[in-house]
């Protein structure tokens, strides 16, 4: 059975005067891994909880496949959910947790046990069946939660920041494991995170959320390289947002007034390193820091504006000698300069 699409149509939710979801519409394709990305308070978790059935929207429709589930109770929706803090049953064993949804569906005891064991084996937890939840590490709990969420073959899978409690290395490993499992099962998945790197790594598409609305919905690369709004540009990576006007001689009105985006890693201190012709910006080094994989520089341009540079540390030994107050020139290739469509159009 193929996993169905999830369609949201003008879903609205407000808490008093605070609008958590501002007429959100979204179409998640069958089998797709879609990430809701945004800062806290952007509405991403509220949206996920509305699909799960824990938040009752004021208006709008939520469909799974062709079925309108907006008013269906949580326990009738047949959705697998992985919660931020795993939400495992502390009074049951590992196997008991994974069997739970199967026994609820009145599967025979032997079959439930068999399927739960298989799910645990797939999650690399064979041999842990009789363990207490308290005796598991964070990563193991995460795997149990994932096994439990998919063992009953739910129609779709929802995940609410499932990796936020793990340390960095384990998190990166789990990102690939979750993605692999999701692709094997071919299950339509909505994933919530505030970690842009996680979103870029895992997703088919990313919906960047802000103030209860979806700012931009696209595949990871376009989201990163061609943000359509100032918010997305600022949220994804380190960007320089520069108001600009194209000036023509003889005082004719400028053909372009607007905003340019240059990513910190696309700026270089040598013209060749920038990778082509473009702009040169003079500035003074205000601060600099070594970050391992890169050097981080903050320049003061024209005495007021900050310009952020991220320079790969392997290629630029010269950064070691850099001094605060030093005059430098930053270069960016034309193809790395992205124009936002928010300025007044001529």
């Amino acid at each position, binding site marked *: 059975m193929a996993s169905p699409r999830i369609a949201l149509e003008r879903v609205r939710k407000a808490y008093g005067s605070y609008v958590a979801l501002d007429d959100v519409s979204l179409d998640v394709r069958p089998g797709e891994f879609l990430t809701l990305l945004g800062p806290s308070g952007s509405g991403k978790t509220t949206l996920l909880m509305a699909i799960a059935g824990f938040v009752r929207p004021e208006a709008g429709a939520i469909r799974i496949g062709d079925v309108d589930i907006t008013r269906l109770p949580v326990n009738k929706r047949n959705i697998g959910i992985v*919660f931020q803090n795993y939400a495992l049953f502390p009074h*049951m064993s590992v196997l008991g947790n994974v069997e739970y949804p199967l026994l609820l569906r009145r599967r025979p005891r032997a079959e439930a046990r068999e399927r739960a064991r298989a799910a645990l084996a797939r999650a690399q937890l064979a041999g842990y069946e009789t363990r207490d939840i308290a005796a598991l590490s964070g990563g193991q709990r995460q795997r149990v939660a994932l096994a439990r969420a998919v063992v009953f073959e739910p129609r779709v899978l929802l995940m609410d920041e499932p990796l936020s409690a793990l340390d960095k290395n384990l998190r990166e490993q789990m990102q690939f494991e979750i993605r692999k499992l999701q692709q094997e099962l071919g299950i339509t998945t909505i994933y919530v995170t505030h970690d842009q790197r996680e979103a870029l790594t895992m997703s088919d598409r990313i919906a960047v959320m802000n103030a209860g609305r979806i700012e931009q919905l696209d595949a990871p690369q376009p989201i990163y390289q061609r943000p359509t709004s100032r918010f997305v540009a600022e949220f994804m990576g380190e960007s320089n947002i520069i108001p600009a006007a194209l000036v023509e001689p003889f005082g004719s009105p400028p053909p372009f007034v607007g905003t340019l985006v240059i990513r910190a890693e696309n700026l270089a201190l040598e013209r060749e390193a920038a990778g082509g012709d473009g702009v040169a910006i003079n500035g003074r080094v205000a601060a600099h820091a070594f970050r391992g994989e890169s050097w981080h520089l903050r320049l003061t341009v024209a005495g007021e504006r900050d310009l952020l540079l991220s320079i790969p540390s392997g290629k630029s030994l010269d950064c070691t000698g850099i001094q605060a107050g030093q005059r430098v020139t930053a270069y960016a290739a034309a193809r790395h300069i992205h124009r936002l469509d928010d300025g007044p159009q001529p």
Partner: protein
Amino acid sequence: MTATIATVNAAGLMRDAAKERRFFLSLALPSLVIVGIGAILPLFWILQQSLTTVRGDFSLVNYAALLTNGLTWRALLVTLELSGGTLLCCLLLGIPLAFLLASTSPKTASGLMVLVLLPLWTSILVRTYGWLVLLRRDGLINDILVGSGLVAEPVPMVYNFTGTLIGMVHYMLPIFVLPTYAAMRDIDVNVIRAAASMGAGLWHCFRTVILPLAFGGIVSSSVIVFVYTLGFFITPAILGGGRVNPIAIRIDRTLSTLQDWGGAAALGILLLVIVAVLGVMALGAARLVKSKQAAD
């Protein structure tokens, strides 16, 4: 050299640690003294009284008289019936109430909590007489029942077992609800949500998740209610109307009408032993259930 480095300040630090421990132990001293003088000493005095004849000789005659007296057994039975009945009513009324409190928003819960606690802040005497006004033959409830034609004769609701039970449940309910509510509130809401997402309805959620996780709290509430009510005196004295005579009332009668200090003391010791035995049994049962849960 290294040995000296490793032990730098060791003796002094150890002395500091011991000093700190002594200080914290000394904080418990005043209450230890009060409990010692106010509770433990009298207990020994009662024990001694129960083992002495009127002439002051050591004897088990008080216990022999007690255990061969039918009134003692009757009182014991009534005590257990009252405590068991109160506990049952508290379980039936208190668990849903605690569940409601735990599942509403914190703001609503604190409002409802005041209502739950209100009777606890009222004197037991006032509350008991309050029930008398409501429950007696020409009381408010019977007036309504007879006036509305629902019943022809006033229903006997007071000066009997029922009336006593109502008064005791009313007194114990908040005491039951508080720890039960605390245990339920401590359950992670996402755990309940997880159960619901996997298909569990409200009743199933309650039975497979909330009840097992709140079990510890419910057991402690139950032990408190049961043990507390074993020694109840005022409520049966007023609402029982002389017809409901648990052990506490027998003790009072033995003292006030028979002036039998030895017999009263023996009754007191009997009650204490029952409480101790039940307490140990409850603890054992709780431990058993817990280990069985872990094995499942």
